[in-house]
């Protein structure tokens, strides 16, 4: 990307966010009896206390994981939406280790997270294998697998890990050795954030500086060219999704062991879908993922605070999210402006002819 294009992309992204926020503003104005207060809570709520800001950072962690998972798969041109199920089933796997194994402190969470990652990678690998072997659409099968992961996970919790003494349908308490220590007092920010930061760096290095990452980019950009170049594109299709699933599973494990003392999710947490937004905002670049994750987490927490203290429900964030996806991924959004730039430059250069 040339510098000019980079500036253009930044302008485009900012404008898309601005439009989405304007829509949010209009919704709040229409819906709320006290729009000023609601908006204040929405936009500034996350900053009004240490705890609220902590919430933003807490939420940023899972979004970073799924954002990177989706980035890797999208870069390979694979529309695998299994990050949602991978996150969930990874968490279940980690819960299993956290409840049933007796291990020394540092080792215990590591084993749990590794197991969660493994299960996540297997989970996202299945649609990949079905695609390579028989051409089944990874999009449709990964969507189905999300539901399968959900019900299967609940089954495991309910029949093998359920704490009958607890009132709700929750698992036994995790062994204290398995729980990730908190990093920042008075918040739930665990050492998981360090793993997330490390992952950002590793994922960036992997995509930018290793041959495997290069092959993912090449295959996603033009699979025929990649094959022509002698790259085994089938294996790229598979390992990109296995890695994506691994990261999603790792994210689920860390979320669970960092934030909770027992498994209590009754729904798919939705972080897989959020990962799509994060990946689009970050242009599939791991280095930008934390920024995008922070932005989305900020919106979410702002909306939560607003819905707690005013009359506007927090689900309206979904409308903002949708708008952002559509505008940023819209190739014709501001495209005229870009074409004009190209046209101006091209007519200045000597005629070189071209494909007629």
């Amino acid at each position, binding site marked *: *990307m*040339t510098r000019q*294009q980079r500036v253009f992309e930044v302008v485009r992204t900012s404008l898309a966010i601005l439009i989405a926020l304007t829509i949010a503003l209009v919704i709040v104005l229409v819906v709320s009896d006290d729009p000023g207060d609601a908006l204040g809570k929405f936009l500034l709520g996350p900053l009004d206390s240490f705890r609220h800001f902590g919430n933003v950072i807490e939420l940023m962690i899972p979004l970073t994981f799924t954002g990177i998972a989706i980035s890797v798969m999208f870069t390979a041109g694979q529309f695998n939406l299994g990050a949602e199920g991978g996150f969930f089933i990874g968490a279940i796997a980690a819960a299993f280790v956290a409840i049933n194994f007796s291990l020394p402190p540092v080792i215990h969470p590591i084993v749990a997270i590794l197991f969660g990652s493994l299960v996540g990678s297997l989970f996202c690998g299945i649609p990949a294998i079905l695609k390579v072997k028989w051409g089944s659409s990874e999009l449709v099968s990964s969507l189905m697998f999300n539901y399968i992961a959900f019900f299967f996970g609940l089954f495991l919790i309910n029949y093998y890990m359920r704490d009958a003494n607890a009132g709700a349908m929750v698992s036994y308490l995790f062994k204290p050795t398995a729980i990730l220590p908190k990093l920042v007092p008075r918040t739930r920010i665990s050492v998981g954030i360090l793993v997330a930061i490390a992952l950002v760096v590793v994922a960036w*290095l992997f995509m930018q*500086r*290793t*041959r495997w990452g*290069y092959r993912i*980019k*090449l295959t996603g*950009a*033009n699979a*025929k*060219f*990649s*094959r*022509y*170049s*002698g*790259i*085994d594109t089938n294996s790229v299709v598979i390992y990109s999704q296995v890695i994506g699933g691994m990261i999603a599973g790792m994210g689920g494990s860390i979320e669970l062991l960092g934030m909770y003392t027992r498994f209590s999710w009754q729904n798919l947490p939705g972080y897989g879908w959020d990962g799509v937004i994060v990946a689009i905002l970050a242009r599939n670049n791991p280095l930008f993922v934390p920024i995008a994750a922070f932005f989305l987490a900020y919106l979410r927490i702002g909306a939560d605070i607003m819905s707690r203290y005013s009359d506007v429900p927090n689900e309206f964030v979904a409308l903002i999210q949708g708008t952002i996806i559509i505008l940023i991924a819209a190739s014709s959004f501001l495209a005229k402006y870009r*074409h004009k730039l*190209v*046209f101006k*430059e*091209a*007519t200045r*250069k000597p*005629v*070189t*002819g*071209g*494909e*007629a």
Partner: protein
Amino acid sequence: MDELLRMEGITKVYPNGIVANKNVDFSVRAGEIHGLVGENGAGKSTLMKILFGLNQAEEGRITLEGKEIRVDSPYAAIGHGIGMVHQHFMLVPSLTAAENLVMGLEPRKGLYLDLQAAIRTTEELGKKYNLIVDPRAAVRDLSVGIKQRLEILKALHRGAKILILDEPTAVLTPQETEELFSQLKLLREQGNTIVFISHKLNEIKELCDRVTIMRSGTVQGTFDVASVDEKDISRLMVGRDVILEVQKGPARPAGAVLKVRGLTVLDRFKKRAVDGVSFSVRRGEILGVAGVEGNGQGELVEAITGLGSFSSGTIAVDGESVAGMSIRRIRDAGVCHVPEDRMTYGCAAALGVEANLMSCNHDSPEYTGPVFLKGKAIRANSRRLVEEYAIKCSSPEQEVGMLSGGNIQKVVVAREFSSGPSLIVADQPTRGIDVGATEFIRSRLVELRDEGAAVLLVSADLNEVMELSDSLIVMYGGRIRAYVPDAKAVSEEELGLYMLGLKNQTPEEIARVVHD
């Protein structure tokens, strides 16, 4: 005769920055067959797509019978009586001929489609213009010639008075071409105007009244066909007074690198696209493959490079059979490949120049350690290649899609030629690119030959295949029809006869190319 249509000052820039038409003027008289010639990439098709409303020009105007018209869609073009027969047929394979014919102008019976009326129309129109097509056949079952007929009928059915034909003969057999010409002449007699795009000068001479010559996106002139000869046209087309000459010494061929024996390749329709072909390419020689496009050259190249499969016969590189080998291993065996379609196979337009240059060798120890790529070595190599191949780019990170066609092709050849190949398969290596890049690529091919590489050159450009090759084979209908050991010793006319299947060498003469 009166002027019917005029295009003035047409300029078209594609989003990737390629200027396909620059300030083009073009005019057509009523009732003539007007030839539009130029090399691949000269801008002929673009100009006609603008006339037909498929592309929008940045600048310029179009007038029909003196009145300015706006053609912003094919629909508008049809409304003005302009019809087009595209190189790639605009037909829907699963629908019948009649359904294709009436598509967009469907006869109705109440709310429903009146299929019987569609069939009647097809039959009646066919009789009127002597373009007979079976209305009930599904288009996917029709031969190429019949499909083209149906395309012409479609345009006429829509009331086209001006008919644009985009290289209609490229896909036809000689008999079909002949038939087409007599049908076109009949259409002219009935008062229609035809724009005939071609790069075959003999066809222009035979069929057209006037001819407009394009080069590099500009018009070189319009002439009465009777007043110019083929050499004049060719000079304006290629832009030089002499036929291009490649500076090269005589070839010193040594042992065979590539041995192809009895190769048969079936295409998607289970037809024998390549039919029992045997030949060798020797170290230090350029073997040209001449032929009209679509006579098995593409399938041959795909079989050798591993992109496609083959059903029988053998292919060996340096004595090792490539059957069952991955593309990776074929490349490791010393084969490189300049693909015919550089945007589909030759590059990733959205990635940078460097990323495109390293696709084939990024995993060699020179460029990658056990984990990380060696950024410095890669950067040094891409800088070297950019310089050596004079690739005009703002930086090695610039997107390849933003470069001109010639520079994109230089990226492709820089990558392929720098791999130290023992066999170079070059498929249309200079198609649609500027003269500078063309000359550069041709002289690199000669250099590599002199360094001992074997070169298989496939080209539809007769000039190129005759001048650049040391020896030649001619393909027609999936078979080798002739072998010319010294490319200098054959005339264009004679090659033309082989290419069109009008003449064949004896099997013994052809077998000389096996070099056993």
